[in-house]
């Protein structure tokens, strides 16, 4: 069972574009167990705001 937040995750579609980015999907999205490590999932699960530029490992994309 993949991460339950996939349908509305703004980053997920980026994770499909090439092989390197697909590793995000494998590390955090593909299984229930792995999605619990995703910082975005953890925050939204706790009812908190998730910045659009936050990666699953908690680092922010610099803009």
């Amino acid at each position, binding site marked *: 069972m993949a991460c339950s937040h996939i349908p509305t995750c*703004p*980053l997920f*579609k*980026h994770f*499909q*574009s*090439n*092989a*390197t*980015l*697909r*590793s*995000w999907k*494998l*590390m955090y999205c593909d299984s229930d167990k792995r999605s619990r490590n995703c910082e975005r999932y953890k925050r939204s699960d706790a009812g908190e*705001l998730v*910045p*659009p*530029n936050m*990666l*699953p*490992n908690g*680092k922010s*994309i*610099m*803009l």
Partner: protein
Amino acid sequence: MASLMTGYWPWWLGAIALAVVAVGYFYSLGIPCGVSGVFGRVANWREEVQARDTEMAMARNAGQVQAQMMAEAMAALEALPEEERKQVEAELRAAHDEEAAVAPSAATAVRPHPAAQLAFLASIAIGGLLAALSSGHWALMTDMGATYTAFFGNGPSAWLILFVGGLCVGVGTQMAGGCTLGHGITGNSSLQIGSFAATAAFFATAVIASFIFQALL
């Protein structure tokens, strides 16, 4: 024909109208029609603007964003414990022969400005205005109809009840994640169990409450 213009619509006309809105909206805009979500976003104006600015910056610098994501992906992979890293790398190799992945859609996720959302809410009010005008029913009214006045009066007590009712709607729709349109029509049409449950809950409660009001007030 005249009664269609001034009287309440027969059930089939109303059904068609609401279905046109629900389906047409989703079809042309790609997202389901829902009012409670919009209220939520307008109420959180500042956060919405911030999130939107971030999303716009991400869309503007798409190339740079992708480069950072790739660099971080490699770093995150390196940071994994040995065994997990090997597992992920193996899975990556296994998927290598998939057909070329699709590039992220250019229609990126930049949310509408809360002002645009507010305009949507205003347009609903305008719809009501046009309906009342065209059917000859527009009037400045300081009551909510005979039934309401009979139950709750017309002055401050009625205002309080309206406010409390609004509170319940505000909290309830955010908690349940949708309203009559979002859950009742769109959600149920997608055969979603969450919507069945929510719809059943709110209809049942409204019915029970209405009977109680009728009996007591």
